[in-house]
């Protein structure tokens, strides 16, 4: 595969508190993801996972603490500028541009790199990763299936040639086979492209299979952290996230490209 010559950088979140208006939803959240590493963020609904991603990508400004992209403090930087600095956020519900074609969605994904003349190279890489999009390149994004839209949202994010990619529940509502494809694409981005990947996921089994490390959140705080193997043997985590039948339905057999999830 093509290797990029841009030195990859990681992401560091230092003790952030975040609030919507005056309602505080995050307390003292810290995390870090290195290049070539995949960190999964799990937790029940309302635990604050999405808010962590919004605070990182600049959609929400944390009220306390710092967010660092490589050595750059991006705590108060606008979302548009953060995208340019090399962080891509694949939002909840995909949010593709429905009335634009797949091609145009990719074009806009590369908006911050529109003058560097490497559109064709990145487009090829993105379509190589998601071959299904190639056949649908001239369709309107709104006409794609949910799984295809998710792939498009990820491909669009990659068009900005990010160092760090953060994803909000990419498997939500998708068939197990599609979830497998998406997870293996994430593995590829980590292993071959050396991206730092921060993955918010409600499909805990799929997340444990692919992650290098896992962070568990509950009511706005980080309550546990470790490798998937360590957490899987933790009784509380087991009981809350792995034992119940409700979260295990997908039972994904993602191709595991690292030793991470052997025990999940």
């Amino acid at each position: 595969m093509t290797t990029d010559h841009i030195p990859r950088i990681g992401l560091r979140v230092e003790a952030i508190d975040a609030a919507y208006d005056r309602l505080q939803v995050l307390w003292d959240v810290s995390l870090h993801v290195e290049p070539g590493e995949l960190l999964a963020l799990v937790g029940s609904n309302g635990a604050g996972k999405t808010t962590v991603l919004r605070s990182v990508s600049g959609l929400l400004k944390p009220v306390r603490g710092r967010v660092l992209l490589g050595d750059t403090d991006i705590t108060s930087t606008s979302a548009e500028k953060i995208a340019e600095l090399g962080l891509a956020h694949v939002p909840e519900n995909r949010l593709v541009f429905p009335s634009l074609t797949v091609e145009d969605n990719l074009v806009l994904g590369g908006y911050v790199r529109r003058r560097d003349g490497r559109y064709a190279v990145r487009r090829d890489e993105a379509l190589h990763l998601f071959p299904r999009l190639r056949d649908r390149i001239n369709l309107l994004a709104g006409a794609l299936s949910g799984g295809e839209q998710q792939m498009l949202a990820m491909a669009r994010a990659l068009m900005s040639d990010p160092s760090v990619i953060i994803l909000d529940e990419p498997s939500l509502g998708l068939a197990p086979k599609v979830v497998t494809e998406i997870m293996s694409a994430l593995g590829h981005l980590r292993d071959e492209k050396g991206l730092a990947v921060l993955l918010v996921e409600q499909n805990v089994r799929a997340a444990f299979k692919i992650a290098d490390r896992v962070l568990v959140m509950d009511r706005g705080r980080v309550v546990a952290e470790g490798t998937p193997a360590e957490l899987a043997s933790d009784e509380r985590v087991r009981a809350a996230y792995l034992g119940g039948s409700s979260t295990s339905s997908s039972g994904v057999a993602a191709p595991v490209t690292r030793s991470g999830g052997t025990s999940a």
Partner: protein
Amino acid sequence: MTDLLQLVFSGLAQGTIYGLVALGFVAIFAVREIVNLVQGEYAALAGLAAISAVGAGLPLLVAIVCVIPLVVGVAVLLERMTIAPVKKMTPLTSIILTLGVSTAVKAVMLLIWGPEAKGLPNFPGSDMTLGGVSIRSQELWVLGIGALVAYAVIWFYEHTVRGKSLRACAEQPIAARLVGISPRTATVVAFAVAGFTGAVAGIVGSPIYLSSWQSGLSLGLKGFVAATLGGLTSLRVAMIGGMALGVLENLVAGYLSSGYRDAVAFVVLVLVLLFRPNGLAGKTSAVRV
């Protein structure tokens, strides 16, 4: 038959002016869901400023080249001053706000240029008669420049990365920011486009339809009606709708009574709002979640 052709032809020219104003409404609404009632004032301002520039001895072409950027600048400046500071903009807020701004702009124009209507000199060319239909050369200028500008604006929105980024901003503001599109820049560009089409309308129309401090009112209303034909989101329908409205007005004025001319736009507006509130195309959403 000759009468009919005559009415249709002059209607097309008049309608092109409405279409250009309508393009301005759509250029902004398609990006920010703002109904910008200052749109007609851009045309009036451009006409009056061009008349003054020519009166001061500038050649017509030079006057035009100076006035268009001036009006674009005013459009952007007014946006920065009155639209940008508003935190939660809804279409209704925007109507109330821009109605106020448009009234203020009218008052300023009245102070500067006085109450009487004036016209720019005709663009070069001679009038002709073709099969009994008299054709003013200025009407040909209106049609030609109007078509060119409409084509350019549509091409910009549909084929350039910048134009697509504006549409993306309209339909998924969050995702647009995440790919690096600044909503601020998008709004400024949209107002610049609207200022441009308004200025062109005001300048090419001025020799025939005259400019005054209040000519923006009826232009704005008719442009708005044409824009609603496309649900305020289709540039093509807005332009064609404007031309159709001009023809319809002329036919009503010619065959019924010229007193009804200005009522046509409102009848059309009421009919559209009653039967096709999303525009003639009846836009259906292709969004799947």
